[in-house]
């Protein structure tokens, strides 16, 4: 680069999403892996500890938001659903406008908000959240999708801040080897944590809730 170029001139210094507002936690993963069930579990487990809210990104309809409302895990005014224009992936990564609008709306409505879960629409293994939208992200896969999933990788599996392998109770029924999944996850993820859970056996999602508490604590200390 020629010396007359100051590269700082090209860079926008403002980074508004590392602000003092609530911790934003992305929940992503393939269709049917248990994202909404996990969001509901986390709301039930953490709802009494934190001032929290949820943004849902359904592919079609407001089904996930309705599920959360029906199960009364949160008051209605703490759940916002966004439309994603047939592109759930775009809405969490390439153009996060609609999700930012929803998060800001919740922040305005609840000034003491400490934690926001942003649940993506069911997508595929390449789905990941922009860090302009979330502070940390959880990628949820399930045992029934096959024990090869961790080995296949993809940004959600390899680079998410937490990988959750759900439905361990189904392993014997679908012939999945949990040790293989654990080992492959460790191989592709390096130091990043992986939790194998069964929301059916533990509807409180205790292990994931502990991880979220730690993220809030680290953030507050920082």
């Amino acid at each position, binding site marked *: 680069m020629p010396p007359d170029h100051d590269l700082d001139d090209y860079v*926008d210094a*403002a980074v508004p999403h590392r602000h003092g507002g609530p911790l934003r936690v992305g929940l992503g993963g393939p269709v049917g892996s248990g994202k909404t069930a996990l969001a509901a579990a986390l709301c039930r487990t953490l709802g009494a500890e934190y001032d929290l809210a949820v943004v849902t990104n359904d*592919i*079609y*309809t*407001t089904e996930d938001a309705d599920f959360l409302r029906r199960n009364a895990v949160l008051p209605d005014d703490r759940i916002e659903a*966004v*439309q*994603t*224009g*047939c*592109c759930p992936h*775009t*809405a969490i990564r*390439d*153009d*996060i*406008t*609609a999700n*930012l*609008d929803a998060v800001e709306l919740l922040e305005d409505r609840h000034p003491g908000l400490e934690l926001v879960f942003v649940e993506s629409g069911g997508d595929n293994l390449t789905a990941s959240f922009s860090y302009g939208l979330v502070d940390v992200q959880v990628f949820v896969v399930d045992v029934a999708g096959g024990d090869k999933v961790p080995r296949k990788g993809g940004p959600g599996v390899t680079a998410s801040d937490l990988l959750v392998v759900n439905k361990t109770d189904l392993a014997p029924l679908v012939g999945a080897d949990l040790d293989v999944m654990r080992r492959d996850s460790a191989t592709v993820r390096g130091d990043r944590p992986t939790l194998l859970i069964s929301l059916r056996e533990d509807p409180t999602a205790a292990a994931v809730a502990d991880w979220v508490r730690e993220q809030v604590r680290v953030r507050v200390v920082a």
Partner: protein
Amino acid sequence: MTAALLTLADARLPAGGHTHSGGVEQAIAAGLVHDPSSLAGFLLRRLQTAGRVAAGLAAAACRGGDPAALDAEADARTPSPALRAASRQQGRGLVRVGRRAWPSPLWDALPAAPHHPVALGAAATAGGLTPRDAAGAAAYLSVSGPATAAQRLLAMDPLTVAAVTARLAPGIDAVADGALRDGLPADADPLLDLLAEVHAARRDRFFAS
């Protein structure tokens, strides 16, 4: 023209446009748009009404018109509450990214969630563009977003949709030129208003508008 116009009119500019179909989702549901020629008809109709109005407002905003007054003019030209909300939502998205891309005191002079053409005019000024550029971007965006939405919803051949959009260019240019001449047009299309209202009441929709 400068390269800033290419950025402003780029569908990949993260301003939230991809979640709006410009009425196409409901037009498809109503059977009005189902193939390339019915899509072309819809886009032409949209360009001549919503597109003209947006181009006039964007040019006026870029020319330094009072943003609050132009915002009220936009309200007056948008009888459908759903379309007002959609326009303001897109305006807010454009302000968010425009403020970062082209820093300027102009952004602070805008209403909180301005109508999209008003934000577009401000973005054009902040980006060093002309009123003709602002009008061109408004006219182009009035059809490019809906065209892409139709492609997604009907699984149309993207090359066909690209060709339809490309062939609208003379019409888009004519609308943009007119914006410099015609003041603030007030063309209306009751069909678009009705489609938007029916669409907003649906629970099973992919697009915000």
